[in-house]
């Protein structure tokens, strides 16, 4: 998008937006400080001599900091804007480190940390600090043409917004859950059970809905005017845009297609996701956590769901949106989308690993001119390692879970055989995706079972 303009022009273009961006951030913090101060919620952080520093003062200082950045960003001149840009060293380091592995494992680890220390992260000031930092990160990075190109692409702007929205709602739910968990630990009722005053449909609910409707319509109109629809050249059956991306909400699936055959990643796994979500009410025996936010009372359900949603769905969407470039190669945040980037990806099937590299033999192959039945037998023989591995995965692990884990044994006793089997198999199917990803990264595994003759690859 900005590829054709030189750096100075690009900075000119971006500067006016960036100036207002920082002013908005300053206003945001100023209003927060004012609200704290007026609301009588200011707390003393520390004292230096006769001066007391309160949290209201802290956010005022942050507001002034952003206010200082605004004119620098607004200037549009290269030496001044260097002050409000990410340092080059950081950018290079980030690009060098980033890859599918670092990204996926990193986001998983970050989410795990956020989850384990949720008591700390749901504090309002921590969340506010996090919000400020992420805005600051965006602002500092957007002076990089490559970062700006992917973030300001009309396709991607709403996704940036969605990330913040998702973060906010996840934070909100977690905060409520943590509060409730503390109350429950103290033997009190959850907040929702205490404050269940009913309100009227008319006018309260209807008015709220009406206001939302009007506001959203206005937003959509503004959006439609401000950002042009990302139309591309006329479609042609022989020319695929490069990179060619699915709609954003399917980018997780597209990422899955990198690791799986189309029928698996496009048909089987999505159906399993839907069927599995539908099965939850039938396999869930935990009666607690009904009608109020809680994590501790249904930790298993919560962790599994958030793993599936945040790790296996959202982070893959983010990766597909921002980090996949031409030829579906991985590009760091500050990396130019180079069509000729070469990433060695020689992938090998499990059968090849087993027969050729492991046993040092030829792959089993039906003799010339044999019938279809014999050929099929040979194919099955060839793919035997993968088939056995998968059957073992699905048949050995569920009983092993019951035998070796007290937690799952309890579950088994409560759920009964069928429900437990359904649950564990859904779990194992879900686990297949990260397992396959790790196998691909660590030893270039292409397929466990590769019956390409019958379009059956797994």
């Amino acid at each position: 998008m900005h590829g054709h303009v030189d750096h100075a022009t690009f900075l000119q273009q971006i500067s006016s937006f960036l100036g207002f961006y920082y002013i908005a951030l300053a206003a945001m913090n100023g209003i927060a400080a004012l609200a704290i101060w007026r609301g009588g919620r200011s707390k003393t952080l520390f004292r230096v001599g006769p001066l007391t520093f309160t949290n209201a003062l802290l956010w005022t200082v942050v507001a002034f900091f952003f206010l200082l950045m605004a004119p620098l960003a607004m200037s549009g001149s290269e030496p001044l804007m260097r002050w409000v840009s990410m340092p080059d060293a950081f950018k290079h380091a980030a690009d060098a480190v980033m890859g599918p592995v670092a990204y996926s494992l990193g986001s998983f680890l970050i989410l795990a940390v956020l989850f384990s220390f949720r008591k700390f992260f749901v504090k309002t000031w921590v969340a506010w600090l996090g919000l400020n930092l992420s805005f600051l990160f965006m602002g500092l990075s957007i002076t990089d043409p490559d970062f700006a190109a992917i973030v300001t692409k009309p396709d991607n702007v709403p996704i940036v917004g969605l990330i913040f929205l998702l973060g906010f709602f996840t934070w909100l739910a977690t905060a409520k859950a943590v509060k409730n968990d503390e109350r429950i630990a103290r033997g009190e009722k959850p907040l929702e059970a205490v404050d269940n005053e009913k309100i009227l449909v008319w006018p309260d609910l209807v008015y709220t809905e009406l206001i939302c409707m009007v506001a959203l319509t206005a937003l959509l109109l503004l959006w439609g005017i401000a950002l042009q629809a990302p139309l591309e050249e006329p479609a042609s059956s022989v020319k695929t845009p490069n990179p060619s991306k699915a709609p954003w909400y399917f980018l997780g699936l597209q990422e899955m297609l990198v690791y799986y055959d189309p029928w698996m990643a496009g048909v089987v796994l999505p159906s399993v996701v839907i069927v599995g979500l539908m099965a939850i009410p039938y396999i869930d025996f935990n009666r607690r956590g009904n009608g109020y936010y809680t994590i501790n009372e249904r930790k298993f359900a919560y962790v599994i769901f958030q793993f599936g949603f945040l790790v296996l769905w959202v982070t893959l969407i983010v990766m597909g949106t921002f980090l996949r470039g031409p030829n579906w190669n991985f590009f760091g945040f500050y990396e130019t989308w180079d069509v000729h980037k070469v990433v060695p990806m020689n992938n090998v099937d499990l059968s090849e690993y087993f027969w050729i590299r492991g046993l040092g033999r030829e792959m089993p192959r039906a003799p010339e001119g044999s019938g279809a039945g014999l050929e099929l037998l040979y194919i099955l023989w060839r793919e035997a390692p993968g088939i056995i591995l998968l059957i073992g995965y699905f048949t050995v692990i569920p009983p092993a879970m019951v035998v070796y884990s007290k937690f799952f044994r309890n579950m088994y006793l409560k759920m009964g055989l069928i429900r437990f089997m359904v649950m564990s198999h859904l779990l194992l199917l879900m686990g297949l995706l990260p397992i396959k990803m790790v196998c691909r990264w660590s030893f270039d595994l292409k397929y466990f079972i590769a019956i390409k003759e019958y379009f059956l690859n797994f």
Partner: protein
Amino acid sequence: MPDKDKMSVEEILAACRKLDGGGDTSASQPSAAEEPPAPAATPAAEPPSGKKPSEMSVEEILAAARAEKAGRGEASSSEASAPTSAAAPVAPKKKPSEMSVEEILAAARAEKSRPATPAKPAAKPKPAASAKPAAKSSPKPAAGGKKPSGPLDTASILAAARKGSKRGPVSKEEAARTAAPAAAKAGSRVPPMPSKPDFLRPAAKSKPAESRRGFFGSLIGIVFGSAMAVGFVSLAVTQLLWLLGFARFMFPNILIEPPSKFKVGFPDVIGPGQVVTKFKAQFGVWIVRNEYEGVDQIYALRSVCTHLGCTPNWLEAEQKFKCPCHGSGFYKNGINFEGPAPRPLERYAITIADDGQLEVDKSRKFQQELGQWNDPQSFVPV
């Protein structure tokens, strides 16, 4: 008026009622009469039960409203110098918006306790039942039996509705209670049956001559007999049209050409190791000259990724076909080596035509994994 979002339910109700009251003033007299004053010993007599507003049932809220209204009606009627009731309730002297929850509750309780004459047990098991007596007494207009004509308030509408029978789901117990007296009444006096309306009388018996209309006549009768039939028939017809449209959708309006044979020039203009990409846009094929299994040959690769069918690009610098969708890569000979593509690209049949040009036949495909690349039709040796 107090701030909207700081108002409690009671206050909102009170405010609504105040608005209603504008039209209600004409009916203030009956409303004042329909709410006999509460006995003087009200809030003090009953120990405060300490109910929170959130625990109030609908009946209680309504009762509170009603009690309060009595107070207001009393005030307004005294303004109009209408005869007032003897003992005014204690609490509702205040403006509704100034009343505390306790006061409203007290008023409600006072109102509720009023019909609880000694004949009836004071503690009733069901809130619905306890609300009933209050409801029964309310909608009787006192002044000359004149019905109030102005807009009714929620409480009186609800009360009127409840007077006959309880709306909504009825428990077995309740049903038995209400049905028993009805049955007893039915035994004593049978109400006169209304005469059957015309459409209920069997048509054939009354008009035997009509039966000559026969099959089609009755069919029309079935189809257009009633509004219900018309509705269902038109629904069925619409569905049928949709179905037909859907079936039509399966046969798009396209020109199905026979798989084309086309000429791609003379073989000697293609240099060794060259990939001709100019036919990709029109025919979806690359013409490649390359060595495969020791034979220098020309073959036609189909430009469709074997993963999910995107169109890969030929990258001259890297000497490979690369798919933009999920990153599958293919060597020049079409063998897949990276990304998720499970099998090599396919070849089309290629021959030398009579005039010495290469001719590609898209109707035949050759797949490497099936061992078809040895077929002499799949390449032209150079």
